[in-house]
């Protein structure tokens, strides 16, 4: 991988999971920034900042890829998506959103398939193989902005 992504945003309420994902992402060395948040609200707040015109790209780098958990307290993955649509964040570039979840429910997978914002569906834990597959699928021809 010689073309790095700018930023990957990881949304999961479980701190060890976030830590684990960060390790994998760091090991893969595929991006400049890794941002982990522990709730949907935090993620919305972050995106509000990062996608604001004239945002500081060092303080709030805009994510190319988001890993979204489904089962979270207060605001689950689906509710996050609803809010995301509602607040009208208009990213200046396409953000790839991938569900990263322990859910084995076929319903969740089917629902993810029906959501236009969701590009992929992966089961936890994230592995180098899964990450590589995601990058190959969604970012192969992509010019890095940074």
């Amino acid at each position, binding site marked *: 991988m010689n073309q790095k992504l700018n930023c990957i945003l990881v949304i999961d309420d*479980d701190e*060890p*999971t976030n830590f*684990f994902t960060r*390790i994998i992402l760091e090991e893969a060395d595929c991006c400049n920034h890794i941002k982990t948040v522990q709730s949907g609200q935090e993620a919305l707040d972050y995106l509000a900042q990062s996608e604001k015109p004239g945002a500081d790209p060092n303080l709030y780098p805009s994510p190319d890829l988001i890993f979204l958990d489904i*089962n979270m307290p207060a605001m689950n993955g689906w509710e996050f998506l609803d809010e995301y649509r509602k607040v009208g964040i208009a990213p200046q570039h396409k953000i790839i959103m991938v569900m990263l979840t*322990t*859910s*084995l429910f076929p*319903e969740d997978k089917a629902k993810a398939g029906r959501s236009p914002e969701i590009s992929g569906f992966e089961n*936890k*834990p994230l592995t180098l193989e899964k990450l590589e597959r995601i990058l190959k699928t969604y970012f192969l021809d992509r010019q890095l902005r940074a």
Partner: protein
Amino acid sequence: MSSRLSISIKQRIYLGFFVLVSLFVVNAIVTNMTLNTQRKSSVYLSETVNPSLEALGEFRSILLQSKMYTTNWVFLRYGQDDKNRLRKLHEVDYPVLKQKISRLSLYWTAPGGSDSLQKLFESFDELLVIEKKIMHSLERFSDYDDPVTKLEAESKIEEEILPRTTSLINTLSGLYNKGLTVREKQNTMLKSSTARLRLSIIVLAIVITCTAIFLSIYMTKIIIAPIKRMSSIVNDMGRGIIRKINYQVNGNEVGDMVRSINNLSDKLQATANFAEEVGKRNFKAPYKPLSSEDTLGKSLLSMRDNLKKGELALSVQNKELETKNKELEQFAYVASHDLQEPLRTISGFVELFQKRYRGNLDENADKYLDYIVSSSSRMKILITDLLEYSRIGRNREIESVDCNKALMEVLLDLDATIKETRADIRSEHLPVVMGYSMEVKQLFQNLITNAIKFRKKDVDPSIRISVTREKDCFHFAIADNGIGIAKEHHERIFIIFQRLHNRTEYEGSGIGLSHCKKIIDLHKGRVWLESEPGEGTTFNFTLQQQPL
């Protein structure tokens, strides 16, 4: 109902007897009257007509004797006996006879009889006066010697006695003939009345007989025939067959009886219908006991109430059970789902740990790590299986499932395994069943996976799938040539997480067959197996043909 039909049978029987008795009475009266008339006629004949005729006969002989003795008186001077006889005739015989005939003539009926008799007596009295004169003129012997007197007497005989006597006899004959005619008439009347009596007795006897026969046939028809029908219907009721009488219902006792039986039949039918409805658990069917003493009806009602109560209690219990069951399922579902999240993290970190630090620690540490990794991955499988087990039948719809298609998909999924183990799987054409498609597929998958997994080490697996159509379900059989299962384990293998073999021998969580059992239970089917160790195993199960 017309008034003619509302005459009761009792009245009809009375009427019939009344008619018969009346006929007898008429017969008796007619006979009696006829006999009375006949008796009167014969009394008249014997007491009036015959003595009268006899007396008239005597009168005739007196007339003749009188003529004869008078003539003798004149011509025989010494005929003293005849003279005495003539005197006796004049003084005794004739008055007696005259009195007798006069008495009889009081009863005579023929017109003019008495008058002509009176004239006859008058003429005879005149004649007697002449005779007496003659007798007187020739009183003594010496009187005969007087030729004038004798000649005079002789000429009186010639001119008076003989013609008068002849005329009297003629008149008497007329009277006698009249009496004969009367007697003839009386006799004829007697004869004809006897004939009439005989005829009337015969006619009445025939009429009475016919009336009696008609009455008995009529009574039979209106009483016996309907009673026979009713008896057959009542017999049927005794055998539990409820019928009604299709009989023209009249306003008489038989009609009442028919109505009573039809009413009984209706009520019985209503009771039977109600019992049937209760049997079908339709507790809302309307029903009233036939009376306050209707033990059957009241028992039925209390039976219904008890059943209803029982049913209600059962349904409450059922609902509770269902809720409990759902809670349990929900618990298993949520527990297994939530358990896997931290488990994934653990196994993720352990794997990471193993990858980064393996060989950097001592040998024991590496071994511990290996155990931790394998145990956590086994736990992952257990939890995933448990989750899937608790998800069987959740949020699914019954649909028609083509088992051929399900099997085909399973065989595609298992393609690698099949090729690796060189398994020979053959199936008959399978039916379409009603069920949950995912579950049916999983059923086939689990059974085939098992059949391949528990193969004999030195024999390629051979699996045969067959199906037979039974009354309301399909009976599937999946037979393999594997290691078989000892009889004592046939029940145990369906219990969740029960295993018969060491994990190192045969991998697996021990949930596959309990999955199958749950799926078949869900489809209201049965599952059983035939197997001996070393002889292969046949798993049998049934699936419904019709919607569950």
